[in-house]
């Protein structure tokens, strides 16, 4: 198989991994090739609208596991291929030099075994870092069931490491991926958590301590392949953020790739809107000091698809509104629908010099579409009238599918109908 087909095949095999970020680490170039920018840089966008910043490939798509949700499961009849370490390193460098990519995202099928795969990956990364002097971003997958020594080696080469949990309850994991044990996934995750903490300590103590995965650890959960509610998913995510110190949890709407009685029917559309709401909720957990319990609870275990989670929360807590722009503290401002971190900071910085009115907010480029219903400026309600609860609900509802509903009429549509 030539490199062209191989890249296409192994790129396609890796596309269900949604992690894309290249952020969170600053790496200076020390005479070699490449650096890493803490903000992360997107290089292009594919037809599905997702950004591409890293060369995302599998080392091999051969796999011993037969997980129901995976396109590369052992039972599938696919062409199988593997890179060699040299091949992949050279390809990465060639793409990087043309500024196609920000770095490498290396994952792999498990073949012939977890440790052997990890050794291949480590070899690729050492070639990049040592032989080519590559200082760009590297995201590496830790293979479930691999030994801690290899994980340790991988951590010193990569910027970010991730272990995908894929399913957030033991029952679903046992159902859909019977060969993987919960232990095999949890162990490397726990190991990484302690190792990252140690590394932070070392760096405080010794200035030149080598950095262990400076951009931290992430994971991915598949949405919609198993019957979990949003509540379970968000509680898991919150646990991972608090206990395992994860940087990100990625949510991946299940794309039907296999026909399997344990999975939703292949004709069902992927739950993209649900995925979007989960990301919104995830941001609320990480940056807006919300807890999972505030967003979903036993009575309504799923997020509202029509409303964004913050608006839904605000509608349930109307007694806490309106908020005075000139007085409310940062955390209170953050809870106003439509006001994000930048807007809240801008308001706090600006009101030290002048009292803010609605016009000032507009001039500061603060989006008032939703916020206007929840704010007062110097005691004056910002919106033109006081809405009823039902009214407010309507105003806050995302008009999803708006474009589809109001399509322009085509002649073909009229034909055959009596108008």
């Amino acid at each position, binding site marked *: 198989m030539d490199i*062209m087909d191989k890249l296409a095949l192994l790129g*396609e095999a890796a596309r269900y991994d949604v992690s894309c970020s290249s952020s969170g680490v600053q790496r200076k170039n020390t005479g070699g090739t490449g650096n890493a920018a803490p903000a992360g*840089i997107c290089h292009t966008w594919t037809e599905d609208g997702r950004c591409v910043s890293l060369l995302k490939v599998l080392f091999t798509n051969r796999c011993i596991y037969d997980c129901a949700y995976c396109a590369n499961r052992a039972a599938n009849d696919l062409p199988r291929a593997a890179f060699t370490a040299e091949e992949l390193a050279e390809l990465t460098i060639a793409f990087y030099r043309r500024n196609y990519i920000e770095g490498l995202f290396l994952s792999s099928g498990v073949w012939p075994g977890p440790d052997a795969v990890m050794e291949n990956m480590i070899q690729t990364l050492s070639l990049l870092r040592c032989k080519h002097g590559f200082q760009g971003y590297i995201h590496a997958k830790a293979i479930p069931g691999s030994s801690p020594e290899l994980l340790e080696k991988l951590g010193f080469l990569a910027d970010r490491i991730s272990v995908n949990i894929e399913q957030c309850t033991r029952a679903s994991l046992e159902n859909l991926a019977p060969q993987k044990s919960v232990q095999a996934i949890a162990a490397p995750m726990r190991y990484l958590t302690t190792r990252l903490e140690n590394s932070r300590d070392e760096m405080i103590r010794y200035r030149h301590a080598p950095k262990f995965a400076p951009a931290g650890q992430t994971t991915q959960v598949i949405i919609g392949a198993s019957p979990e509610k949003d509540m379970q998913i968000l509680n898991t995510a919150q646990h991972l953020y608090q206990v395992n110190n994860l940087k990100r949890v990625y949510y991946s709407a299940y*794309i039907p790739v296999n026909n399997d009685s344990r999975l939703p029917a292949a004709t069902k559309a992927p739950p993209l809107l649900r995925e979007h709401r989960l990301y919104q909720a995830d941001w609320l957990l990480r940056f807006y000091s919300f807890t999972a319990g505030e967003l979903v609870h036993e009575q309504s275990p799923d997020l509202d698809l029509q409303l964004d989670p913050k608006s839904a929360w605000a509608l349930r807590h109307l007694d806490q509104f309106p908020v005075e722009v000139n007085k409310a503290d940062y955390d209170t401002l953050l809870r106003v629908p439509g006001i994000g971190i930048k807007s809240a900071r801008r308001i706090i910085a600006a009101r030290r*010099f*002048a009292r803010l009115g609605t016009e000032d907010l507009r001039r500061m480029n603060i989006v008032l579409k939703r916020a206007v219903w929840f704010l007062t400026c110097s005691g004056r309600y910002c919106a033109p009238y006081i809405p009823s609860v039902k009214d407010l609900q309507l105003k806050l509802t995302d008009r999803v599918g708006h474009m589809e509903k109001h399509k322009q009429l085509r002649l073909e549509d009229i034909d055959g109908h009596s108008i």
Partner: protein
Amino acid sequence: MVIVYEGSFDGLLSAIAYCWQNRIRPEKLQSSHSQISLLEEKLIERRRGIGRMIRRHLAELAGDKVALAVLQICWQAYLAEKAGIDMAIYKYLILAISIKADPSPRFNIPEVNQVVRAARAVEGEAHRFQGLLRFYSLQPDLYLADFQPDYNVLPLILPHFTDRFQDQDFIIRDLKRNLAAAHVRGGRWCIYRLDNSGKNWPDAVFLHDSAAKGSLTASVLAPPTGDDLPDTDFSQLWRRYLQHLSIPQRKNLRLQRQNLPLKYRRYLPEFARPEKKEHPETDAPG
């Protein structure tokens, strides 16, 4: 009085410093590149090192951090090349000196708002092009990238690429402004102005350069001729890879266009039409 400055950032700063020192309130600041007016005017010469002087002065008043932030924002706003921005920068700087603080949160002053917005737009585009610039390998060790940014972001993105590709000779051409930046291994770089065809190099004028002026090697300064085909191998590989990376069930061209507007796609190999000759030269503005 209308103050005319030499049309560079240093020129603008010199004019502002002149006004400040002589207690002049200019009715208008005007670049010497733009139209001549009939009003009384005064031409201010560019003073070398004026940026550093202003920065030191500001640092004494408000601290290093503020001084750097103020000059940075003025520089970015200047690169927006918008009409009337020079006057806004003048007011912004004078305000910074008189209040001895960073004026950027005082958005209720129109000029501050104008400068901050322009700077933000320029910074945004510079960040975009850090990802969207594409290099073609002309000769085994020389890379060329073309682009046409809305704002003059070349000087802003250059440090990013000179750090990233320290061991690489490269040229970045801004074909909209006929500017080019050349970098040779080891960190030497300079910015040129090209002639109107955007192709001829020997007459190029040095605009900015790093310490070692004139030490750029001939291979970098040699004009890329129309016969060098860019490396189609890698751009094909890249295009094919991206086709396979997209998930068909999630196809959403509207979202793609929202994230990557069409105006940025002109020099991206992944959007080059296969039947067209894939050379950046053919896309040069006519």
